[in-house]
């Protein structure tokens, strides 16, 4: 009888490389994303992302709307984090028109942005586990927590997904009285539920074996590829717009910037998990200091910003979300451009996936946390 080594030599197979289309309609592509992957056996040797299946021409549409009418369009970018899209757009329009935001509105914006980050990250973790093959249990744990957040968002805006809540110069209406109590209750209880998810997954042997070292990206590459957000910080780059280029009132809050070391799937998971805790910390402080007063600055109904251009960005849940607006002193933006974090986080996809197997490719894509509404626009 032959030994195992000898037998392997005998049955060594010749394989032809073949192209596999993953997506656009596939649960693991998080929307309508398609990758053409060239496989040799089970190992990926080349990857090409194919985009555009959700292209609705939002930038073009915004040029035919007034500055206020463009706000609902921004909801439809990253639809898992509509609040932060609203904030980023309104901030840029305010910069362009020179409008100040009242103190109370700034606090409301911070509270809702951070709750949005919790909601977005927790779903990212849930979906990542789904991609890993741990079907539904972690995702339902995540969805259970997100449900409470959606209730809070519904309380302030009347909507559960596309909020259209922020306005240029503030927010559309003050938060109801019970919101503060409910939000306080959420941030008090939530860390306990987060520990539950933490205990279930972080030290899980199977998860660690699948995720550690997979899809690693070096810090230099991440910067060169214009990555941002958790994907960048997982590589060990200590960069957070909230701290390094503070906007709104973020300089008043105490929080840590979480970084990883290896830039692999596991580090991206850990960075997101820890960022949730930091967000809860910020919300607690903001709720404590929430002042009274107006929530919107009065300005002309049809805003006509002076001729010029403005770019501003925020630290959205998925990375650096920027808006670039050009005004020609008419009621509609002359140019409306979105700098989408996930499109740029997707650019090193080839470097991350090549050399890994099909199942790992799915996991790596999941760890970037893409939303096609924002990539395709």
């Amino acid at each position: 009888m032959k030994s195992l080594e000898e037998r392997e030599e005998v049955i060594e197979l010749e394989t032809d490389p073949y192209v596999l289309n993953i997506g656009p309609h596939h649960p693991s592509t998080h929307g309508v994303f398609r990758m053409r992957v060239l496989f040799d056996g089970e190992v990926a040797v080349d990857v090409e992302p194919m985009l555009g299946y959700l292209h609705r021409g939002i930038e073009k549409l915004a040029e035919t709307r007034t500055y206020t009418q463009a706000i609902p369009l921004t909801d439809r970018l990253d639809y898992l984090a509509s609040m932060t899209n609203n904030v980023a757009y309104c901030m840029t329009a305010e910069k362009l028109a020179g409008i100040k935001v009242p103190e109370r509105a700034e606090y409301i914006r911070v509270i809702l942005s951070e709750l949005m980050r919790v909601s977005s990250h927790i779903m990212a973790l849930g979906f990542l586990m789904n991609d890993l093959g741990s079907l539904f249990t972690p995702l339902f744990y995540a969805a259970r927590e997100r449900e409470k957040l959606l209730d809070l968002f519904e309380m302030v805006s009347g909507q559960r997904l596309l909020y259209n809540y922020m306005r240029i110069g503030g927010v559309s209406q003050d938060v109801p009285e019970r919101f503060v109590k409910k939000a306080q209750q959420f941030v008090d209880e939530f860390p306990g539920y987060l520990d539950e998810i933490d205990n279930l997954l972080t030290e899980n042997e199977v998860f660690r074996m699948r995720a550690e070292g997979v899809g690693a990206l070096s810090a230099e590459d991440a910067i060169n590829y214009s990555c941002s957000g958790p994907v960048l910080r997982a590589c060990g780059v200590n960069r957070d717009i909230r701290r390094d280029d503070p906007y709104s009132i973020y300089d008043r809050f105490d929080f840590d910037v979480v970084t990883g070391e290896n830039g692999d799937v596991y580090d991206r998971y850990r960075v997101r998990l820890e960022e949730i805790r930091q967000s809860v910390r910020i919300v607690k402080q903001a709720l404590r200091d929430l002042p009274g007063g107006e929530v919107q600055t009065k300005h002309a109904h049809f805003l006509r910003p002076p001729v010029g251009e403005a770019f501003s960005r925020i630290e959205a849940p998925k990375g650096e979300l920027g808006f670039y607006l050009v005004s020609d002193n008419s009621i509609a933006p002359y140019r409306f451009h979105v700098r989408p974090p996930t499109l740029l986080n997707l650019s090193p996809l080839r470097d991350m996936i090549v050399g890994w197997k099909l199942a790992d490719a799915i996991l790596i894509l999941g760890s970037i946390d893409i939303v096609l509404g924002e990539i395709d626009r």
Partner: protein
Amino acid sequence: MTVDLRVQDIAQQIGERFPGAIEEASADSMVVKGEFIPSVGQFLKDTPRLDFDYLNCLVGTDYSDYIEVVYILESYKHNHRLVLKARAYDRDNPTLPSVVGLWRGADFQEREVYDLLGVTFAGHPNLKRIFLWEGFEGYPLRRDYL
């Protein structure tokens, strides 16, 4: 706080090093002649004092007379920012050199500008439409499209 560098100082340095490269320099941005973009980019990236290692945003705008591409550059090390612009005047065949060799983050963004505004980036390794399909006629974000 990310500091906006004084454009006048940088423009002077670039003007000395690459005569004729600066087309226009205002308070918050400078326009560089298209053909100088890669060399100016290399200078901004490699000079230790400037060290612009991060291309934050690359966006094109159609101003009817010309198509302008804006490069928002940042340095992670020094936490400062510079806005660079280049203009393509030939509407029928607007061309600018690609900066993918310097910042690979420009890859998708240049493809986007090519797709929606029709600017050809010479030297781009894979310049084809990114959102619209091959064979789509016209460039939607141009002002004369509809």
